[in-house]
C-alpha cells in the first residue's frame, strides 16, 4: 500500500513537468489558435471549419500526407539493412559510422537546405538530374534527415534480440532468408512500426526543409501555417490547420504508443556482433550507398566552404571572427557560437531535469489499469511538442507570455525554454527504455531491505541509467545547438545563435558573406558531430531511437 508520503512525492513529480508543459506549450499554443477561433471578439468556429473546404488547403494536406508517407517508406527500406550492418555485425570504424548516421538528424535545417540546393542546383554536382524545385528533392532531404531514426531505433532493438531462436531455426535447416522472414522480421516489426510512425511525424511536420527546398510549388501544413501567419495574417486558416495537425499527430502518437507497448522491453546486448562475411556483401554495399547518400551533401558543404574563386582557402573560416562584409552581423559569428553553446547548456539542463522526471514516471508499470492508461496519456502529451508547428508556438509565446507571473517575452531564458520543449521528447525516449528495462524486483528487494525511495533510486536506478542520462544530455545539447524553427521566431535581441546567424548571412549580398555562412555551417555540423561522437562512447542504444 503506497503511503501518503510516497503519493505526495509522485504527485509532485507529476505536477512539475505538467505545469511546465501547460505554461510553455499548451497555454501559448491554445492562445494562438484561440485568436483564429475568436474573430472580432465573437466565437466563430464555422469560419475555421470553412477553411478546410478550400482547394489550396486540400492540396497542402495531400502533399503533406504523400510526401511524408513516401519519405517514411524510403527511410525504412534504406534504414533496416543498415541497422543490421551497423548493429549486428562488428567491424572497425563502426562507431564512427553510427555517429555519422545521427549527424544529419541534429543538423540545422537551414544548413541542410543550403547544402542540398548547392548539390542539386543546375550548376551543382547533381545538376544534370534536374531535381531543383521538385518533390524528389524534398523527399531526398527528408530521408537524409530521418534515416538515422530508423537505423537507431531498429538497430538498438535488433542488437538486443535473442539470437538463439534464429540459430535454432538455422540449425534445423532454414535458409537465411527464411530465418529472416519467419523469425527476425516478425520480432522486429514493433520497432519498425515505432520508427516509421515517428519518421512520419517528423516528415509531416518538417518546416525548414520544405521551406528551403519546396520553392513555391510545394507547401506542407507546417510551411502553410507559417505563410498564413507571417505573411497573410489569416489567423483563421492558420488555426484550422493547427487543429488539424494536432488531431493527426495525436492519432499518430496513439499508434506509436500502442506499437511500443507491444514491444518487449529493451534488453542489454550481451553478445558482440560477428565479423562481416562474404554473404553480407549485398547488405554492406547497401549500407555503403546509404552512407554515401548522407555524406555527399555534407562533403559538398565542406568543399564549397574551402573554395574561394576557384582556389583553396581558409579565409571563410577566418572571417568567422568578424561581423561579415558590410556589417552583415550585429555580433561576430564566433561570439554567436559561444552564445549558442551557452543556450544549449541551459536547454540541455532544463530538458534533462524534466525529461528524467517524465521518463521515471512513464517507465513505472503500475498495477491498476486506470493509472496505466493515465501514464500512457502522460507520456503522449510530452511527445506533442514534436508535432506542433514552431510558428504557432513561437507566436503563442509572443501573445501569451507577457503578463506576470509569466512575463518572459524579454527574458534571456525564453529561447532555452523553447528549445528544451523541443528536446524534451527526445530525452524521454532515450531514458525511459533504460529505466523500464530495470527489473522492478530489484527495487522491491532494496526497499524490503529498508532502503528509502531516494536510496533505491541512487543504488538501483542510477547505476543502470547514468549512461543514458549523460547520453540524453549530449543529445539534447546537440539538438539545441542546431535548433532553428522556434529560435528564429524568438531570437529578438542582438544576441543570436549560430543557426540564426547562418540564416542571416545567407540573406545578405556578397560572396564573402555566403562563404562565411558555409564555413559557419561546417563549424556547427562539426560541433554537433563531436557531441554525438562523445554520446556514442556511452553506448546507449536508445539515443536517437524511438
Amino acid at each position, binding site marked *: 500500500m503506497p503511503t501518503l508520503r510516497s503519493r505526495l512525492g509522485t504527485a*509532485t513529480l507529476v505536477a512539475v513537468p*505538467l505545469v511546465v508543459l501547460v505554461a510553455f506549450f499548451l497555454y501559448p499554443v491554445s492562445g494562438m489558435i484561440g485568436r483564429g477561433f475568436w474573430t472580432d471578439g465573437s466565437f466563430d468556429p464555422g469560419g475555421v471549419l470553412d477553411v478546410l473546404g478550400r482547394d489550396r488547403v486540400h492540396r497542402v494536406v495531400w502533399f503533406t500526407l504523400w510526401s511524408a508517407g513516401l519519405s517514411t517508406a524510403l527511410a525504412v527500406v534504406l534504414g533496416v539493412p543498415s541497422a543490421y550492418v551497423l548493429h549486428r555485425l562488428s567491424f572497425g570504424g563502426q562507431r564512427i559510422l553510427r555517429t555519422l548516421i545521427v549527424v544529419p538528424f541534429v543538423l540545422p535545417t537551414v544548413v541542410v537546405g543550403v547544402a542540398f540546393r*548547392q548539390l542539386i542546383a543546375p550548376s*551543382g554536382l547533381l545538376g544534370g538530374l534536374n531535381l531543383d524545385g521538385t518533390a524528389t528533392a524534398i523527399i531526398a532531404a527528408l530521408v537524409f534527415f530521418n534515416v538515422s531514426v530508423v537505423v537507431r531505433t531498429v538497430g538498438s532493438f535488433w542488437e538486443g534480440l535473442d539470437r538463439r531462436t534464429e540459430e535454432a531455426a538455422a540449425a534445423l535447416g532454414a535458409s537465411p532468408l527464411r530465418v529472416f522472414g519467419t523469425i527476425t522480421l516478425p520480432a522486429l516489426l514493433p520497432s519498425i512500426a515505432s520508427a516509421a510512425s515517428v519518421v512520419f511525424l517528423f516528415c509531416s511536420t518538417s518546416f525548414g526543409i520544405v521551406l528551403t527546398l519546396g520553392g513555391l510549388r510545394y507547401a506542407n501544413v507546417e510551411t502553410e501555417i507559417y*505563410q498564413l501567419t507571417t505573411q497573410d495574417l489569416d489567423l483563421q486558416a492558420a488555426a484550422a490547420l493547427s487543429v488539424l495537425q494536432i488531431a493527426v499527430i495525436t492519432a499518430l502518437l496513439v499508434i506509436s504508443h500502442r506499437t511500443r507497448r507491444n514491444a518487449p522491453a529493451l534488453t542489454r546486448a550481451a553478445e558482440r556482433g560477428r565479423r562481416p562475411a562474404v554473404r553480407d556483401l549485398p547488405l554492406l554495399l547497401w549500407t555503403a550507398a546509404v552512407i554515401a547518400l548522407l555524406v555527399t551533401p555534407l562533403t559538398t558543404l565542406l568543399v564549397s566552404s574551402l573554395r574561394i574563386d576557384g582556389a583553396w582557402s581558409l579565409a571563410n573560416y577566418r572571417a568567422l571572427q568578424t561581423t561579415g562584409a*558590410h556589417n552583415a552581423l550585429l555580433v561576430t559569428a564566433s561570439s554567436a557560437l559561444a552564445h549558442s553553446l551557452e543556450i544549449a547548456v541551459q536547454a540541455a539542463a532544463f530538458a534533462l531535469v524534466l525529461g528524467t522526471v517524465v521518463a521515471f514516471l512513464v517507465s513505472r508499470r503500475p498495477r491498476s489499469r486506470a493509472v496505466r492508461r493515465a501514464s500512457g496519456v502522460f507520456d503522449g502529451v510530452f511527445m506533442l511538442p514534436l508535432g506542433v508547428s514552431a510558428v504557432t508556438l513561437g507566436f503563442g509565446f509572443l501573445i501569451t507570455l507577457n503578463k506576470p507571473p509569466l512575463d518572459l517575452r*524579454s*527574458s534571456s531564458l525564453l529561447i532555452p525554454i523553447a528549445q528544451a520543449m523541443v528536446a524534451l521528447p527526445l530525452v524521454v525516449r532515450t531514458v525511459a527504455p533504460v529505466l523500464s528495462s530495470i527489473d522492478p524486483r530489484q527495487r522491491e528487494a532494496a526497499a524490503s531491505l529498508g532502503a528509502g525511495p531516494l536510496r533505491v533510486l541512487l543504488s538501483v536506478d542510477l547505476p543502470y541509467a547514468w549512461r543514458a542520462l549523460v547520453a540524453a544530455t549530449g543529445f539534447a545539447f546537440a539538438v539545441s545547438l542546431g535548433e532553428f524553427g522556434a529560435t528564429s521566431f524568438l531570437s529578438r535581441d542582438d544576441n543570436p545563435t549560430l543557426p540564426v546567424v547562418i540564416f542571416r548571412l545567407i540573406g545578405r*549580398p556578397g560572396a564573402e558573406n555566403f*562563404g562565411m555562412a558555409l564555413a559557419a555551417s561546417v563549424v556547427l555540423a562539426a560541433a554537433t558531430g563531436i557531441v554525438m561522437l562523445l554520446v556514442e562512447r556511452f553506448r546507449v542504444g536508445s539515443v536517437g531511437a524511438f
Partner: protein
Amino acid sequence: MRSNFKASGVLGASLLLIGAVALAGCGSDDSTDTTKVGKTLVVATHNSWAMSKEVMAEFTKETGITVKIATNGDAGELTNKLVLTKDDPIADGVYGIDNTFATRAVDAGVLAKYRPLISAASVKSYALPGDGASYLTPIDYSDVCVNVDDTWFAKKKLAPPTTLDDLAAPAYKSLTVTEGAKTSSTGLAFLLATIGKYGDDGWQDYWKKLVANDLKVDKDWENAYEVDFTAGGGKGDRPIVVSYSSSPPFTIPKGASKPTTSALLDTCFRQVEFAGVLKGSKNPLGMQKFIDFMSQRSFQEALPDNMYVYPVDSTVTLPAGWDTFAPVAPHPYVVPPADITANRDTWLSQWSDVTGR
C-alpha cells in the same frame, strides 16, 4: 484519498507560483522606465537591420538612451507580429515597415502619431499619402530592379535585356530567375512593378508570357541571387535576376574597379522604409528622439554601407561607387500603398494562378 488530491493540487499550484516567480525574476533585467524618457529603447525591426556601432553610440551619447534591436523576420512578419501583439507591444517603436505593408499597420492601429519637427525637403516625396504620413516617417528607400550579369552576356555575345518586355522575348528564354511574390518582399515588389507598368488588366498576360518564356520562380532572394544567379555566391545558371539597384557594387571583383553586373533602371519598383512609435510604448519619447536621429545626417549617411538602401535625405553624400554603379531609378513604377493593402490578397491569388505556384 480526498485529502491527498487536495494536497497535490495545492502543491502543484505553489510550484507553479514558485517557478513562475523565479523565471519572471530572471527576465526583469529588461524592464523599462514608464515615466518620461526611458534609458533603454526597444526597436522592432526586420532581419536586414545593420548599423555601425559608432553611429548607435552617437545616439546614446546625445540622449543617454541605449537602443536594443529586436529583429523579427522580414517586413511582412514584422508588421504581422506588431498587429498580433497590439495590446501589449513587443517594442517601443518600429523601423522597417515598408510601403507594401504600411497601411496594414496604420489601419490596424498599432502606431501612435509622430512626425519629426525637422526633416529634409526631399523627405516629403517618400511620405505615405493621407493620414498615414502622421504615423510613419520615411527613413530610406531602395529600388527593386532586374539585374543582369554583364560578363555572361559579353561572353555569349548577346545584348542584355533593358526593359520588362525584353524578359518575355525569345532571345532571353530560360535566363531569368525571380522571387515568389507570396514568399518574398523582393518578389512582391517585382510583381508590383509589373502591375504599375501593365495595369490591372494587363499584368496577368505579361506574367503568362514570362512563364511561357521559362521564368524560374524561387522562394526568396537568397535562393534566386545566391544559388541561381550566375554572378551570385553559388554560381548558378541564370544571368538575369530580380534584385536591387544597389546590388551591382557588391560584384566588383577583388582588385577590379567595375562591377560585373548592372541593374536595369526601367524595371524598378521603389520600396520605402518607415519608422514609427508604437501605441502602448513604454518609452514613446525615447522612440521620438530615435526617429529624429534616424532622420539626421550621421544616420542617413551610414544607411547605404550598412543596409544597402538610399537615404531619404537627398543632400547626403553617397559612398564612393554608388553614384556610378548603383544609381537609383529615375522613374520607378508606382502603386499607391492603399491599393496594395486593398488588393494584395486578390493580386497574390491571381499571381498564384498564373504562375501555377
